[in-house]
């Protein structure tokens, strides 16, 4: 793990090293430029790819620096003044206006340009291969100890055998007769067992009970899909979105707040972010094949489904709705309302759905059986805080039951008709 992140950050480290020198020389600050770029430009520009605006890598080579200063500070004015280059860009991008950044100083712009011009050196190949064979140290010692122990054991067994043999020899030599026990004719164990009706009875009962138990357990798990982890048409990683990028669950599953359904986000919700995020630049898991290319390719699948043309940065109108495989599937005769649990009760999504932020592939965490529901209703107190609905009924009911806080069950959360109608 450390190794991976180290490698990933290596270029950056090198960069920082460079900066430490650069600052001394009053050169543009690439690190500063990067943060300025991310804060101001990244929404519309990418370094090597056309997005809403043109790709910015090497932009300083294309235009005069003074021209760039005034363009960035107020592009509209330049277009209006009829500057040939400015008008050309304006027309190329179908008349979309670039936001003006009058707050940026020339020095800031220099920093940004330094960042956009900067090409990170190719990562040192040597560093890669260096750490490879060090791994199996621990395993080796363990095996060795085991092998030595085995050898000692084998030696002891041999010694015992030899001692026994020698003793026998001595005894034979001294004329001591070793009396061998005469084998009496005994009924074989299985026969004795078969002739004992009590034992047979006990065994049969035991067998019947245990097979009933096994059968019952088998039948009771029919239709329970705990751990169900289907392959989805698009490899959507909750780990990256919810875990690494800390996106709130209800940003995408917004209807969970107000509706019985949590809702699978419509593709336009994905495009809120993915209009600008066309490629994956995060961590990789090479073992499982989750490379950057892999993830980027999945983003392309989204573009295809939603009909987004990257080259023109526009919607084509040709859409292919994604057929997600449904994981959490309650039977039709169960009424479940997300809003009541999420908004009214204030329960975390993870309580039922498990550590979604760690799930590379989504799976069903809980059993979703009725027993599981009921258990929670028995244990969980209702959230009455600042809820006008509960004021009266909670006071009256808690008095009746003689408790401070009512559970969902005491509120009637175990009645059949609350979930089955």
């Amino acid at each position, binding site marked *: 793990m450390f190794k991976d992140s180290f490698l990933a950050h290596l270029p950056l480290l090198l960069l920082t090293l460079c900066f430490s020198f650069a600052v001394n020389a009053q050169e543009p600050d690439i690190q500063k430029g990067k943060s300025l770029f991310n804060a101001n430009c990244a929404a519309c520009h990418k370094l090597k790819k056309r997005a809403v605006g043109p790709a910015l890598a090497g932009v300083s080579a294309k235009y005069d620096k003074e021209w760039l200063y005034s363009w960035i500070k107020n592009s509209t004015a330049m277009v209006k003044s009829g500057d040939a280059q400015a008008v050309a860009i304006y027309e190329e991008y179908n008349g979309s206006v670039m936001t003006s950044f009058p707050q940026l100083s020339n020095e800031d712009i220099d920093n940004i340009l330094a960042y956009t011009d900067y090409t990170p050196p190719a990562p040192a190949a040597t560093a890669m291969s260096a750490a490879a064979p060090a791994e199996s140290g621990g395993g080796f010692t363990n095996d060795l100890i085991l092998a030595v122990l085995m050898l000692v054991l084998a030696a002891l067994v041999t010694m015992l055998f030899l001692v026994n043999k020698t003793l026998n020899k001595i005894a034979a030599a001294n004329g001591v007769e070793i009396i061998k026990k005469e084998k009496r004719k005994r009924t074989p164990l299985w026969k004795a067992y078969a002739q004992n009706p009590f034992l047979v009875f006990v065994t049969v009962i035991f067998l019947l009970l245990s097979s009933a138990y096994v059968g019952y357990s088998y039948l009771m798990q029919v*239709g329970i*899909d705990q751990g169900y982890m*289907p392959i989805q048409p698009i490899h959507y990683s909750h780990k990256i979105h919810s875990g690494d990028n800390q996106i709130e669950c209800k940003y995408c599953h917004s*209807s969970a707040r*107000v*509706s*019985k*359904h949590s*809702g*699978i*986000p*419509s*593709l*336009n*919700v994905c495009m809120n972010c993915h209009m600008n995020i066309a490629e994956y630049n995060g961590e990789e898991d090479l073992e499982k094949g989750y490379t950057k290319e892999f993830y980027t390719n999945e983003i392309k699948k989204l573009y295809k*489904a*939603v*009909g987004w043309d990257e080259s023109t940065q526009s919607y084509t109108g040709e*859409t292919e*709705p*994604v*057929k*997600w*495989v*449904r994981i959490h*599937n309650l*039977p*039709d*005769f169960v*009424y479940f*309302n997300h*809003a*009541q649990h999420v*908004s*009214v009760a204030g329960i975390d999504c993870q309580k039922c759905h498990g550590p979604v932020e760690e799930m590379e592939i989504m799976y069903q965490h809980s059993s979703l059986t009725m027993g599981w529901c009921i258990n929670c209703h028995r244990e969980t107190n209702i959230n009455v805080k*600042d*809820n*006008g*609905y*509960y*004021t*009266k*009924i909670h006071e*009256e*009911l808690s008095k*009746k039951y003689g408790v401070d806080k009512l559970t969902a069950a005491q509120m*009637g959360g175990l*009645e*059949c*008709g*609350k979930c*089955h*109608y």
Partner: protein
Amino acid sequence: MPNQKKYWKSEVELNDQSTLADDLAQKEFVQKLPEDLLGNTELPESDTSRRDFLKYMGFSTAAATLAACEGPINTSIPYVVQPEQIIPGIANYYATTLIDGFDTASILIKTREGRPIKVENNPDAPVNNVANARVQASVLSLYDSMRVQGPMQAGVDVSWDTLEANVAQQLMMLAEKGEEVALITPSLASPTTNQIIKDFQAKFSNISHHVYDALSETAALNAFEKAYGKRALPSYDFSKASCIVSVDADFLGDWQGGGYDTGYAKTRVPKGKKGKAEMSKHYQFESNMTLSGANADFRIPTTATEQQFVLAALYGALTNKSYPTSLSKALKAKVSEIATALKAAGKGAVVVTGLQNEDAQRAALAINELLGSDVMDVRQNTSLRQGDASQINQLVNDLNSGKVKGVIMAGVNPAYTLPNADAFIAGLKKADLSLSFSMKNDETAVHCQWVAATPHYLESWGDVEMKMGHYALMQPTIRPLFDTKQFQEVLLKLSGSSQSYDDAIKAYWNANILGGVSFNEALHDGFYVTTNSNRLGYRDNVDALMQRLIRAKSKAGLELHLYTKTGIGDGQQANNPWLQEFPDPISRVTWDNYLTVSKADAEALGLNNVSQSDGALDGSIAEIKLNDIVVKAPVLIQPGQAVGTVGLALGYGKTAGMKSEMQVGTNAYPLYQNFNPVQTVTVTATSDMHEFACTQLQNTLMGRGEIVRETSLEIFNTKDAKYWNSMTQVSRDHEEIDVTSADADMWQAFDRSIGHHFNLSIDLNSCTGCGACVIACHAENNVPVVGKQEIRKSRDMHWLRIDRYYSSQDTFEGDLETVENISGLGDSLSTFNKMEDPSANPQVTFQPVMCQHCNHAPCETVCPVAASSHGRQGQNHMAYNRCVGTRYCANNCPYKVRRFNWFLYNKNDEFDYHMNDDLGRMVLNPDVVVRSRGVMEKCSMCIQMTQKTILDAKLEGREIKDGEFQTACSSACGTGALAFGDINDKDSEVAHLKEDNRMYHLLESIGTKPNVMYQVKVRNT
């Protein structure tokens, strides 16, 4: 020694040279199979033998079976771009308007994930804001699998461009030749459409516009025109009425478009100080037993001729003029009694008539003018019926004579609804251009050159002027399911306009109606009210017409009264299984129309009804003859049917564009000659019998006052509640105690004072039996349709039924007296036997019965698997997934409200109704389980709705206000008969109703402590 004998299969084997034997042993076919078998040329060369095929087949079957052991893979497909308003799991409501030429209603549409699933009343709308049974069911007609899915030419699918271009060309050609083209529409009452038609006529001068209503109100329109100078109908506000006299006007049914029950019910509940409570008085003269007659205080069965006399006599009595009639003495006395009541009521009096006779209609208007009735409003008159019968008759002639060369029809089906449909079809075939805008490939569309598929009203734009100054908007609640276009859209295009219909509506409204108010606001509300009204002066002279009325003579034969049933109406929605299975409020018959005959006439004609051993009803089939028209219909003996009259419902017997299961009944339109619902016919019995499917076969209460309690207004005012709403007494330690007292209870009491405690109150006074709640319950709770055969076996699934009871004496009070006077066993046997038969003119009560949600429920204690259990909030829960189908609960239920799923009613070809096709299943409510075979089900007191209200309140962190809790039936009830709420909220309406002295429980004496209560019926007699 082993047997060496060899058996030869054929002589070929004897021939060593022949390889045929070997070949036969190896292959099934020696000769080469024809090369083009299955069109596959590779097959004969294939190495795969039949045996291999079977091996692979077997393996794959086994593999598939094994694979099926795993759970199915469900996919979830989110929107690509989610519409802003749609959140999965949350319903959206849209205000819109239904108008189909028969029904008109301002309604709200509940949609889930973009699918309309339920019709709700629009309580904010000022007029026609209540959805009747047909309007409630109209949402299912949207998902009708028999709909036309795109434009067609002679039965072949074409594109809209082809249709429009061709029709435009043909219209041009006809215009150049100066040939007339008729545009036939129902009464649209749509200001924008009228404008569009005007523009269309400006472009093609040869277009003549004919308004055709299947059920004509021509006489009433003509009468109003004569009296007030405008072709329209008055509007009525029955909530202002204190004395109502109806002469064959079923105003609680479909009279003049219907929708009057809301106002009517307001005056039917006794109100005022104790001892001085008042309610309106309702007299009904009629031939058929109608909803209005069933609700009337006095119902007087009369023939149409007698009804004309009654009108003249009433006018005479009010004006002190003498119009001598041949009315019987009793009727004359009744008329003078009514005249006195009308005079006393003054402005609160109103006389309405449904006779399709201009003189009779004018007489009614004259009486209302004379009384200065506030109930009838001529200023805010309505144009919901505009059709002129003579115009249509003329058109049929013109088509046949070749005077009219083209027909464009929109929303009408004359080939089915016209009495002279054959002449119309013949004329239609002669036309150079015939185009029908239709949702179905109906009787008319199949004879047209072009069929333009139109959208359902829930996919359409539109506007309606309900009555003067009251406008309503129609908006789509779903994208068109099929390749359809509204006819206005096509007319706009043919007129050369580039405007869409919705833009046209918006432009018209902004220019002419709204006066600066935002269109979106009006669209959101679904209606807009201006102060427009007509100043109309009365200018009729009625003396001559009274003379004509009293000269009316009855002809020999029986008087046939054609009517429309609450379920099917004019027949537009005949392919709607909810409506077909809807039990008629009066006869309780489903899936049929029938000839209603009085008992006396039936005996005279040799017609009878026979109950089978399983309780099902059979009726003789009668032949109805009108001139040379013969129609066969089964006979139902109808208590209350005026002697000398028979009744038959229109709207049945449709065959085109219908599923085979839905093709039931007899088409009565051929008998609707000259658009007059009253005809003189001869009826003869045939030897054939017809099988009915009824949901109720018990007609009387046999004097069991505990089930339906009722009293008269006089007793209600003068006597103590203990007298007319007495509590059943039981004896304990030789002392009489109330059956509800704790001492008489064998159950442990459960404290329900904390939290919600739901109760439903049903007011027998304001329930008119309209049945909107039955359909609303169907829609809300995914109640399956089981079909005629199953209903006949008493396997109906309606969670809510409206029991109808007849008195066996003239009144229910008489029944009670009879029972009290029984002495001895012999007497009781013979008396009760007699009491099974209803009176010739019985009193009628309606009693909606659903699960009573007993606090001490007999069903719960007998369930061996605890599938039925009680909630703290008073609801009797039913866990379908737990039920194993023992049906003990149904046996132990004293109210017989539990329903058993004898079969799988969804995705089953044996029950080919809406739940058997993908389209029809779109109407299902996703919040309610679709039950499977072998499971008991029943009314849940709409727990999904009460839970929704609670969950919403929790989400918003607030308390629940009175009126928020609703059930499907209570929110559908337009008359306020059903009131639902939390009785622990002491200020709620239902808590007050629980304390009302009219309150009683059904079968109180058995101690079930129901959470459904009834209010004693008070008759103003």
